[in-house]
């Protein structure tokens, strides 16, 4: 029988870390069916990238080629160099702006969403349920038109062309709040909170010791999603920033700014811009898996 651990509370009083529960139930590993299905999924996910590599390593006519060979051509690095050296494309500025703004946005969204989600899920307060419905309802308002009044707002306060105009509107998200609410509802048993209260923990302390560890897997996932979404956002940055201070998608869009577009260079640019994200995945993925192991504290 595995060990039951009510560690978040005891951890406060007792410094020894919680014992990790073994994952496997008597060493059962999944069979071929699982791996086969996952293999198909992975293949479907990777093939388009490989196609992009095939085009990006060719020349301008490769994309029109109806019987494409499955072996990449030799031009990838030439095309990539063309992207980096293109004077109209401010690649490094775009890269830095994207990294900076996406990181800030992801961190902020995770923090504020977890906080709000905790309140909605586990704390009872007047108007709670209605406010949650309101939050969810705000997601139903289409955002395309929002660009217009938002631009008016930012130009009034003189923030056009500044990275702040990208960051500020995205600091919290209804999606994040809703997700953390649902996740925490399911992942944190109420007894843990009450036990913490009995120990005299304040509201915030309870949040830190019970909520945060329990929320970690979903919070990490939310951070990753938010980062990627912020990274790939095009239209708003296009409108509010200028070409000297772009984010990466806006900078790369300039590769398409000729009467004739060389898609091999465009796709090389796309692959280049995906590299930071893939690196993030590798790093975050490891954190996520271990986070999932530790964070699942059940009583």
């Amino acid at each position, binding site marked *: 029988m595995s060990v039951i651990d009510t560690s978040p509370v005891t951890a406060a009083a007792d410094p020894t870390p919680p014992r990790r529960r073994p994952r496997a139930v008597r060493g059962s590993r999944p069979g071929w069916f699982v791996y086969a299905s996952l293999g198909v999924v992975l293949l479907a996910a990777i093939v388009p990238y490989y196609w992009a590599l095939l085009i990006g390593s060719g020349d*301008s*006519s490769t994309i*029109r080629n109806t019987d494409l060979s499955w072996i990449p051509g030799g031009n990838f690095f030439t095309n990539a160099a063309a992207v980096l050296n293109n*004077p109209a494309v401010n690649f490094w500025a775009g890269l830095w702006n994207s990294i900076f703004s996406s990181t800030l946005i992801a961190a902020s969204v995770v923090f504020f969403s977890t906080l709000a989600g905790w309140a909605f899920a586990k704390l009872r307060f007047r108007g709670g349920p209605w406010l949650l419905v309101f939050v969810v309802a705000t997601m139903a308002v289409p955002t395309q038109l929002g660009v217009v009044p938002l631009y008016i707002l930012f130009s009034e306060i003189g923030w056009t062309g500044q990275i702040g105009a990208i960051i500020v509107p995205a600091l919290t998200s209804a999606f994040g709040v809703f997700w953390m609410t649902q996740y925490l509802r399911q992942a944190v048993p109420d007894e843990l909170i009450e036990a913490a209260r009995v120990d005299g923990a304040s509201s915030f302390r309870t949040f830190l010791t019970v909520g945060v560890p329990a929320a970690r897997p979903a919070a990490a996932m939310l951070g990753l999603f938010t980062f990627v979404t912020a990274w790939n956002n095009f239209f708003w940055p296009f409108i509010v920033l200028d070409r000297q201070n772009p984010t990466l998608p806006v900078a790369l*869009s300039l590769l398409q700014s*000729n009467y004739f577009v060389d898609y091999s260079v465009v796709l090389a640019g796309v692959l280049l811009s995906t590299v930071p994200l893939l690196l993030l995945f590798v790093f975050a993925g490891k954190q996520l898996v271990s986070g999932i192991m530790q964070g699942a504290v059940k009583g």
Partner: protein
Amino acid sequence: MKSRALRRVALAAAVASTSALVLAGCSGGGGAAAGSSDEEITLTVATFNDFGYTEELLNAYTAEHPNVKIVHNRAAKSNDARANYFQKLGKTGLADIEGIEVDWLPEVMKYSDLLAPVPDDLKSRWLDWKVKAATDSSGNLVGYGTDIGPEAICYRSDLFEAAGLPTEPADVAAALQGDWSKYFEMGDKYVAATGKPFFDSASSVYQGMINQVEAAYENPDSGEITATTNPEVKKIYTETLDASKTQSAHFEQWSTDWYAGMANGAFATLSCPGWMLTQIEGNAPEVSGWKIADVFPNGGGNWGGSYLTVPANGPHVAEAQALADWLTSPEQQVKFFQQAGTFPSQVDALKSADLLGAKNAYFSDAPIGEIFTNRANAVSVTPFKGQYYFQVNDAMSKALLRVDQGTQDAQTSWDQWVSQVDAIG
């Protein structure tokens, strides 16, 4: 109003000296902008696609005006640039000089008071139909013309040969001299000989034809929409679709299939303004058979073209106008043409030796300067384009595409178009 007059006076000196230099045929940009001080200013120029403005060429201006720094911003697509333009017109955020496309003119004209007008003495610089399109009801010209798109016919000489048709540009031109029926007749011959389509899509042919009609969609005096009752529109619609049954390759222009068609011989001819040349060359680099015939049914037509506009509420309107003046001067435009294929709209540029001598190697050394100058001079009709033109035309392209792709028959598609047009405005 008063300040505009003042600015005009202040600019007169600069403009006068510029014009003098231009008329004398000297190269080199305009004189010093008399209205500006000697402080450092930065002028932003916003364009899209490729106007041909390179770092190098722009440096020629800054060399003569050391107090001016030019920042050139390019948007990738004209649609994005258009969204950006109208989003910010009349507010803050536009560049000192903004490029616009001729398709946007009907809407821009509604807000012409938000743009700084071009000085009157410059108006003779451009072809009159170019000027007319950008002149508002008070007589103000609000755009500095950059390029135009006079159309010729590009054809696949190798496919023509296989069909027993003439292959030399001069012969093809002679054969197509006349109106559209000549074009369709040749098309029939081609289809009979090879069984393959003659042109790319119904809408490209329609576009060529409708641009030769004086007032196709609207009444120039009242602005009312007359498209649905204009017999010429119906006639052109029917003619186009009749020919398209056998001669069209049924592509949607700008689709991936259409690009592929340039390379794989899916169609044998294409209406070619100057900027189409790079498209063909880029999409079909291995094909050697594309040539240009110095002809267009009914003489000539114009497809596309751009202007530079100067927002009236910018911080450096006078200096921006001076720069726009320089950028659209004949010598400069010829240089931009050599860079990007943007064919000049300036009268004097069309006489320039550099322009007339330009050749294009991909198209078998076709004398493109000569060809497009001839075509530009052959444009006889300036179609009137009022504020609803774009919408009506857009609905029409869709109507044509529906029939071309076989989704609907011609009559149903027409009826649907009529009901859509009736709902406009």
